[in-house]
């Protein structure tokens, strides 16, 4: 599979995750969200950027429990809840947001 971003064709796996992490640019998230009929707000971007920083630092896509805790620490308690994150990313914050952020599927997610 592949998606078209800024005139380039980027390879994805069968679940839509980017094949090569280094292909990512913000437009990738916008295009992927468009496929899911999702408009990215500032709150969405906050999570995407958080995930990219987390990956850079730990080389791992966090499990949802870990993500929720870490978001609460960084962005405030009200945002560190699964309710808030599921409202933003109904397909699951770890799965959907990680995908938009160009990360692999979280370890432990089948």
């Amino acid at each position, binding site marked *: 599979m592949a998606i078209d971003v800024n005139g380039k064709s980027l390879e994805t796996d069968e679940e839509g995750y980017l094949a090569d992490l280094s292909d990512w640019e913000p437009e990738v998230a916008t295009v992927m969200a468009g496929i899911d009929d999702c408009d990215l707000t500032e709150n969405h971007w906050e999570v995407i950027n958080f995930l990219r920083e987390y990956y850079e*630092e*730990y*080389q*791992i896509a966090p499990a949802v*429990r870990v993500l929720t805790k870490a978001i609460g620490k960084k962005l405030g308690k009200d945002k560190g809840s699964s309710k808030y994150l599921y409202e933003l990313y109904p397909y699951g914050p770890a799965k959907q947001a990680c995908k938009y952020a160009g990360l692999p599927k979280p370890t*432990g997610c089948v």
Partner: protein
Amino acid sequence: MMEDEEYQGGEVKKFLYVNRRLPHGTVYALESLETVLIGAAFDQDVSMLFIDDGVYQLKKDQAPESIEFKNFSKTYRALEMYDVEKLFVERESLEERGLSEDDLLVDVEVIASKEVKALIDQNDVVLSF
């Protein structure tokens, strides 16, 4: 694993992962780390022990990008967030290799070789990598 539910039910067993090999020449270290992360997502009680060449897995300043491998040494620093807080390193293995606790990238508990048996005896399941 479902995203919205934590694993419930079943008894919590104590798992000890024994790491005995250098990190990049074989896939053992990475496989162990991934298994630990998955086990922790299932709410198991997980400890890790680093002996023999396994102590090199925690060496600071690894840069395997130079051989086009992922730098998963950074992931050991995420273990705390997964509630894997018990990392044990054998003192004799460090000393044999001219290393000390200061060379390691995470906080660990250094134990003597003769304390290893007691640690193993405290666990229900022992997996060696």
